[in-house]
């Protein structure tokens, strides 16, 4: 086998495409800004420079490993180079660290500390630019951009949206949308993947933390929370809980201590979605119209479809997302009590997603002119609130969600990962509700991280062809194929973010290990659930029998008139 020598340690070359991956394999955390294993190599930040035995200095991300190479990752010269790079980056950076959104989580900040920059010798000549607050999902602060291009490549390569790019040249270079349009006026879908790769706060999540504290303080407001499936396997990241472990119970406890009046599980909403969407699928298959049926749970995808593939808008399910369904039900459920108590119910949904912040403002998600979800808090914002409160999160005792929506099925919980919606719908449509069916569906091809997955099941004597796709660039490619007639399906699940909500823009970011642990965590939540089928959830049955009769369409579907 071929080897290269890294800091006098022999490391075998096993198909790695660049020296950087070998260095990381050797257990050395080499600093980077612009390198992401899933994006194309850009080689701009120069932080990953190393020195070889002949004194040549090069960027390890864009160097192919050659057998017999001898490199050093931390020589005096390399240290000096890295320090200068950071110093130069900091010289045109606003450096308001103490009041910055990213304080404590900023890659620039932590690398400045690691390489030991104690003073910046250069003056900042950059003109201050206005902050772009035009999107309900993200905030763009050009003064904090270090031009690593991570957002540019993520938006284009992973999401196929491409609203951001470099503009101008040399020292005048900036990252911005075409013609520096406000981001809210572009084709941006609000997925927040740019914010999760941004090493600084040049792109950050639009936060609503203050609004929530204000509401909690107000005695006339009944603050009701709903927690999305994917949040529970990520929130613990910030509190030393093993990756992927289910922290739902602790989060419920934390929210109650903070002052939330009621806490529910969005998986209940997901159960409702399963009921409505499977009904819709059966109807469309029967009539043969508007096939394939596209899922509509993911607001990033819905917006992408409207912007780029308007010809498929009618194929989107008319269902609201689980968040939307559940908020409408909650608002109606508390309406009488509100009138009696002289209170106002406010629904705060805790989501792995930044696009949900835009979804709640869409008129088609309103009921009779009423905004059903008042605020969306992302997982990272909730983490901040827990920290503000000073809670020892890991030590909290588990608590369960409030009645009457306290039960939710495993089917509703797997919505958090790619393939989950499909799997839950297939469970609903299965006639034989045994453990065997669950096993069969889980092996049908809907699980896993492959970009586009296919499955086919029998519904009576009709074969139903299914595709599951995640990452909008993958979705775009699939839609092109559907358009050209190269492939055809009856049901297509689309999630804007790769791997689904577990890696949403509102989650704490993470790499390969994080993704796998979160997916495993979600499936574990399912296997340990008492109810696995959405249609067997007693709380759902009760809701349909007593509360929803005749109002399914008004509360659970988007009003498209």
């Amino acid at each position, binding site marked *: 086998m071929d080897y290269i020598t890294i800091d006098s340690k022999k490391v075998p070359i096993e198909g790695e495409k660049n020296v950087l991956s070998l260095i990381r394999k050797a257990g050395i955390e080499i600093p980077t800004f612009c390198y992401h294993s899933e994006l194309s190599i850009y080689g701009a930040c120069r932080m990953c420079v190393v020195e070889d035995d002949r004194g040549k200095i090069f960027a390890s991300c864009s160097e192919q490993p050659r057998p017999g190479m001898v490199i050093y990752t931390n020589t005096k010269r390399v240290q000096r180079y890295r320090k200068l790079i950071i110093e130069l980056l900091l010289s045109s950076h606003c450096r308001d660290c103490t009041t910055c959104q990213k304080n404590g989580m900023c890659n620039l900040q932590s690398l400045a500390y690691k390489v030991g920059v104690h003073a910046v010798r250069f003056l900042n000549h950059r003109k201050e630019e206005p902050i772009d607050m035009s999107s309900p999902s993200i905030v763009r602060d050009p003064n904090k951009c270090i031009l690593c291009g991570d957002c540019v490549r993520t938006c*284009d390569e992973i999401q196929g*949206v*491409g*609203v*951001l*790019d*470099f*503009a*101008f*040249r040399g020292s005048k270079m900036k990252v*911005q*949308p*075409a*013609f520096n349009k406000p981001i809210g006026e*572009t084709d941006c879908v609000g997925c927040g993947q740019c914010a999760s790769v941004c090493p600084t706060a040049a792109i950050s999540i639009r936060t609503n933390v203050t609004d929530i504290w204000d509401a909690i303080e107000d005695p006339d407001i009944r603050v009701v929370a709903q927690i999305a499936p994917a949040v529970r396997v990520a929130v613990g990241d910030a509190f030393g809980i093993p990756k992927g472990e289910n922290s739902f119970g602790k989060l419920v406890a934390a929210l109650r201590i903070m002052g939330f009046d009621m806490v529910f599980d969005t998986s209940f909403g997901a159960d409702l979605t399963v009921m409505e969407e499977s009904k819709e699928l059966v109807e469309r298959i029967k009539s043969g119209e508007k096939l394939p049926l596209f899922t509509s749970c993911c607001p990033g995808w819905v917006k992408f479809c409207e912007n780029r593939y308007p010809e498929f808008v009618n194929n989107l399910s008319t269902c609201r997302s689980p968040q939307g369904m559940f908020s409408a039900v909650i608002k109606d459920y508390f309406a009488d009590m509100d009138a009696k108590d002289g209170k106002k119910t406010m629904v705060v949904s805790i989501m792995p997603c930044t696009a949900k912040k835009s979804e709640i403002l869409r008129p088609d998600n309103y009921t009779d002119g009423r905004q059903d979800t008042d605020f969306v808090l992302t997982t990272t914002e909730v983490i901040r609130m827990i920290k503000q409160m000073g809670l020892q999160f890991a030590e909290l005792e588990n608590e369960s969600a409030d009645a009457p929506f306290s039960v939710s099925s495993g089917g509703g919980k797997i919505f958090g990962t790619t393939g989950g919606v499909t799997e839950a719908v297939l469970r609903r449509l299965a006639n034989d509700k045994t453990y065997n069916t669950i096993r069969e569906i889980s092996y049908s091809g809907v699980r896993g991280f492959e970009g586009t997955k296919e499955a086919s099941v029998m519904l009576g004597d009709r074969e139903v062809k299914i595709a599951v796709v995640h990452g909008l660039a993958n979705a775009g490619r699939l839609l092109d194929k559907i358009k050209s007639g190269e492939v055809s399906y009856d049901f297509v699940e689309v999630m804007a973010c790769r791997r689904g909500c577990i890696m949403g823009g509102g989650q704490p970011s993470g790499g390969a290990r994080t993704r796998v642990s979160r997916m495993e965590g979600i499936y574990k939540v399912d296997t340990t659930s008492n109810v696995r089928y959405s249609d067997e959830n007693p709380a759902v049955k009760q809701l349909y029998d007593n509360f929803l009769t005749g109002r399914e369409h008004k509360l659970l579907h988007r009003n498209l008139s």
Partner: protein
Amino acid sequence: MLEQSYYEKADEIVAQYGDEARFLIPIIQDIQSCYRYLPPELLSYVAKKLHINEAKAYSVATFYENFSFDAKGKYILRVCDGTACHVRKSMAILDQLYKETGLSKEKHTTDDMLFTLETVSCLGACGLAPVMTVNDVVYPSMTPEKVTELIKKLKEEG
């Protein structure tokens, strides 16, 4: 929104090259030479036709100094401020042009759309320093007096 004729012209130019991403630069060059500037609406329009993201097309158009999103005057005055011209007092030429045309560092085009004034880094005619051009005509060894005369002549021609 521009007049329909602009989009028809763009269609015509795109048809000459083909709707591939690699033809973006020659297409927008042709559009610019047609209108003496690159109408932003047409850049977005062409990007869509070539299946390029608008932001990417904008990135290309702003990378090159030569593309301009602002409508330019009938006469484009370019003053060379390369090293050779600079040491032979090109700034005095520029100042005189500012005075004669009423333009400034911030304002590049006169309201009557007659003049646009730009500086360039080198025109490649250092032996003729200080040098300037009006559209494609070169004016060598300029002096402030010559500038006054030139502008007067151009104004008369209208």
